């Protein structure tokens, strides 16, 4: 930016392209993204069933939302889902990313296969796992095993963890890809020096790989945490929030309140909570990563 600005000032004659070039993008963005963002705040103070005209309701919807045991449980479930999901995905993605960064031929082939889940739609994944985890005709019969014959998606104690696993199936490839790219940027000299000093593999991983990857870790963590906060499609198809609300995390709570119970006011209040928590989380992690992240990555070299 700075360079471009300077150059135009030097040539000094033209102001550059006209503003009208940005207008189409701005109009789409403003009408269908910015206005709705403001709209959701306004609607959270309204009584609206989705059909008639919205009516002003003051703080009533907020009081109702914050007191609603279903929404409160959804908040707790969102916290559990986000945490467990992170604790599962992050190590797997890191391990796979490091593994994929190796130069052996077969690893390249494995990488090609790892990416396959990325091309499936959430609906396709949800339907597939529903059928695969069917207690009568799914995996349990394939291995004739009672252990696998659980009612995975019908058991309230298991469903959330199954959802975590299926979400990981979809997203681990993306994150291991980030880690693979990160690992490949680590200078080989660091490892050579460490090997000369007699450092073992684990020591190298702990003292070179992990610290060198810290910015990749922060990027990937932000995406995972903020992502699982707003995750809707797959869980909706897989469990619909059930059984008995066991997988009803906030985005599902919002949808079900709005488009099943026709209480758009409460649904909007839940949406506002989602936006605020998401932004706070994103900003916090961004702060953690520091402002000058690109320069400091090669520190000490």
């Amino acid at each position, binding site marked *: 930016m700075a360079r471009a600005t300077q150059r135009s000032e030097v040539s000094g004659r033209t*102001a*550059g392209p006209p503003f009208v070039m940005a207008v189409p993008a701005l109009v789409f963005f403003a009408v269908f993204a*910015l206005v709705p963002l403001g*709209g959701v705040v306004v609607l959270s103070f309204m009584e609206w069933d989705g059909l008639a005209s919205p009516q002003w309701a003051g703080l009533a919807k907020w009081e109702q939302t914050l007191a609603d045991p279903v929404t409160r449980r959804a908040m707790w479930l969102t916290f559990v889902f986000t945490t467990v999901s992170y604790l599962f995905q992050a190590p797997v993605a890191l391990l796979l990313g490091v593994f994929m960064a190796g130069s052996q031929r077969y690893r390249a082939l494995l990488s090609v296969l790892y990416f396959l889940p990325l091309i499936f*739609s959430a609906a396709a994944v949800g*339907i597939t796992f529903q059928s695969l985890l069917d207690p009568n005709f799914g995996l349990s019969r394939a291995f004739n095993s009672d252990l696998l014959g659980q009612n995975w998606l019908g058991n309230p104690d298991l469903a959330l963890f199954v959802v975590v696993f299926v979400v990981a199936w979809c997203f681990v490839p993306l994150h291991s890809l980030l880690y693979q790219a990160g690992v490949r940027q680590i200078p080989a000299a660091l490892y050579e020096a460490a090997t000369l000093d007699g450092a073992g593999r684990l020591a190298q991983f702990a003292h070179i790989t992990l610290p060198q990857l810290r910015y990749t870790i922060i990027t990937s963590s932000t995406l995972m945490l903020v992502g699982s906060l707003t995750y809707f*499609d797959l869980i909706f198809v897989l469990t619909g929030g059930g059984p008995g609300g066991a997988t009803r995390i906030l985005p599902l709570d919002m949808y079900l309140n709005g488009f099943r119970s026709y209480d758009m006011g409460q649904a909007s209040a839940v949406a506002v909570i989602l936006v605020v928590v998401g932004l706070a989380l994103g900003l916090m992690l961004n702060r953690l990563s520091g402002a000058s992240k690109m320069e400091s990555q090669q520190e000490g070299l």
Partner: protein
Amino acid sequence: MKEQKRPNVLGGLAGWLWLLVVIVPIYYIVVTSLRPQQDYYDENPLSLPGNPTLDAYQIVLENEFVRYLTNSVLVTVGAVAVILAVSLMASYYVVRSATRLAKRTLELILLGIAIPLQATIIPVYYLIVQIGLYDTLWALILPSIAFGVPISVLIISNFVRDIPGELFESMRVDGAGEWRILPTLVLPLSRPALMTVGIYQALQVWNGFLFPLVLTQSSGVRVLPLSLWSYQGEFSTNVPAVLAAVTLSVLPILAAYVIGRRQLVSGLTAGFGK
């Protein structure tokens, strides 16, 4: 990294295990979709089908699959074409204009990256109903464009910034206006970025589920991801047919993956590198 004596046992184990995790469901989709409906209840779910048949595919194709496919293509092509066009223009403006307005414009658009689409769905629904577009393909195209613009402008503007300023100067010296520079200089030189963004956005729109779920209703405007969901209701006991529909819905992207894996992968991670 290359010449380590001891192999990475843990990584290797995780690698092969995850391969299994990835492959088993995909293998299951394919073998089940090739099974006759009766055999689904009798055969081992992971065995190769004893009497492989394309019946399930025939059922799906006879049940409006082509219409849903067409709808998906229309929505994806329409949205992506507009996203690319408006984002390229906006990127050219914010990069090459030295005004404060250009800076503000960029800041405003980039703010959009932080807006979660899910959280705005209720006002978007209200808006679409109010302007009379509910249950049309436009209801899917317009919001998809809006949510595609921020990340596209981020990627394309980073690319346009690297076009040497001398090229612009020499075109101006030749008397070319901004509207001529855009198609003759900016467009061809930004092709790689447009490719990446196009692929990323196409996947987003193609696989999108929430907009179709909330903003459409009738089967005439149903797109593929939603059709999978409704096939599941229609065919309930015919699991092979449902999974045949899943297979058919993935095929177009699989074809793209096979042809242009590199572009697809860079497109997929486009929003995330940084």
